[in-house]
């Protein structure tokens, strides 16, 4: 049996408080979300309704809802209203490096790491789309050069893409290869079954390990636009290095929408 919830007291703001009124209104709305009274997908009371309840101006009410938007708790839909959202989308993909980078996927099953991510949501390989593909040779940026253990400015092959799962953009990626590895299908738009990792191994570089580094930050305007990010959604800056013994064979960088992936790692304790 669940205890009946005590009725929520009439909303009050304390104009004498040090806490600005818009923050007090945001607190009240946030409480409703955290207590579960408002669930993801639910609409917040309208501006007019909130103005009436709190006896405040539209500007103050808007500041309250944009405070929640900047925290990633609500989304404003023009002309419709403000809706509660999940901090991480319900249909977020699960990125599990210990599985997605496993050799049997790319070598025996012809599945790329991105395809394994898609499977976590029950999506098929056809859900994994790429666009804005750019294949070129560029001077290696500093952080890439350091990781590929070459002089900064050395020419490397770059595969630049936007990855989508269905319609939703999820990552902006750059894969950098040393020039001696940038041959055959590795220079083409489609790298074939098993993707880049399968092709690198065929060149005689069996992959031995990967190192990935993750940071979080707010997106720049280009990323916000290209990833169609809502307010209050940070991005993950990822660098994933692939090694064949001591030789770094690929430097993969990605800017990943923070609300579209959960990152999972399994660590053995034995």
């Amino acid at each position, binding site marked *: 049996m669940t205890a009946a919830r005590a009725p929520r007291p009439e909303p009050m703001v304390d104009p004498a408080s040090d806490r600005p009124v818009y923050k007090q209104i945001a607190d009240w709305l946030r409480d409703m979300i955290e207590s579960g009274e408002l669930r993801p997908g639910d609409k917040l009371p309208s501006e007019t309704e909130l103005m009436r309840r709190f006896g405040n101006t539209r500007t103050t009410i808007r500041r309250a809802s944009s405070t929640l938007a900047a925290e990633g708790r609500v989304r404003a839909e023009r002309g419709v209203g403000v809706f509660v959202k999940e901090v991480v989308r319900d249909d977020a993909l699960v990125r599990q490096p210990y599985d997605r980078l496993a*050799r049997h996927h790319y070598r025996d099953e012809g599945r790329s790491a991105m395809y394994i991510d898609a499977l976590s949501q029950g999506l098929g390989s056809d859900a994994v789309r790429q666009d804005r593909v750019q294949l070129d040779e560029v001077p290696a940026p500093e952080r890439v050069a350091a990781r590929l253990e070459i002089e900064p400015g050395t020419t490397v092959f770059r595969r630049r893409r936007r990855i989508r799962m269905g319609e939703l953009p999820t990552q902006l990626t750059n894969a950098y290869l040393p020039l001696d590895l940038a041959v055959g299908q590795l220079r083409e738009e489609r790298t074939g079954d098993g993707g880049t990792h399968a092709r690198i191994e065929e060149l005689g570089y069996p992959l031995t390990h990967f190192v990935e580094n993750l940071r979080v930050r707010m997106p720049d305007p280009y990323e916000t636009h290209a990833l169609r990010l809502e307010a209050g959604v940070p991005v993950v800056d990822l660098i994933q290095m692939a090694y064949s013994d001591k030789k770094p064979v690929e430097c993969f960088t990605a800017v990943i929408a923070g609300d579209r992936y959960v990152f999972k790692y399994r660590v053995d304790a034995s």
Partner: protein
Amino acid sequence: MVIDTPIDRSSDRPAYKQVADRLRDLIDSGRVQPGDRLPSESDLMTETGVSRATARRGLRMLINEGRAESRPGEGVYVSDGEPKRLVVRDPAMTLTAFREEPSSSGPNAPAANEQGFDYRCDVVALDDVPAGSAVGSRLKVEEGAIVFARRRLVRLRPTGSDRPFRPAKLADSYIPVDIARGRVRAEHTGTGGLYARIEEQGHTLTHFDEELVFRMPRPYESSRLRLGPGVPVIQQTRVAYAGERPVECFRAVLAGDLHEFEYRINAE
């Protein structure tokens, strides 16, 4: 005249976004450096002809992106570049280090010291609490069932700095009540730490499942970690297992501008 490209009134891009674009250009081109003051609202009004509200929104955008910070009464300054980050690496080594080299300080302090940070970890609370849904489902107990919580606050500062320590991580461990006995409940868990105490009760740790979520902080997280606007957090959830049995659920919220995670994944 600092801003040389005028605001394009006929553009679809709102004027405040164009103001932000100009300010970003100033930073990216190096014309204003980390620690420098950005043009004030009044400067922007004079130079670009926008209203104060538009100038303010433009500056606010850079603050929200974490590229600038407001110092009340002084102005808006370019953020001090990339702060030094603590790299959290090798969980497999770190988490089981107590077996080889049991120490009373745990493995985190030496790792931080090696990277040039002074490290402090203080117990904030030791309590029996009702499990929330996230902790309950991971510990396989009912939501609302009582679990033991150890809440800690980790603080960092660059080694040798005379600045105060900065709060960096809110670290909470939730432990099923039947395991929360003896020194598991004590402020100081003793040599080898919490995991050594759990193993002494016959629960040999077999693996950990770790999950990272990247998001904006809740207001209480911003205030406890003293985060500026535009600084996201990393939420780390790690469950320690002894075979099938979850014996601890660790939940941490880390200041996004102070941390980086690193994992090594072996092929196969």
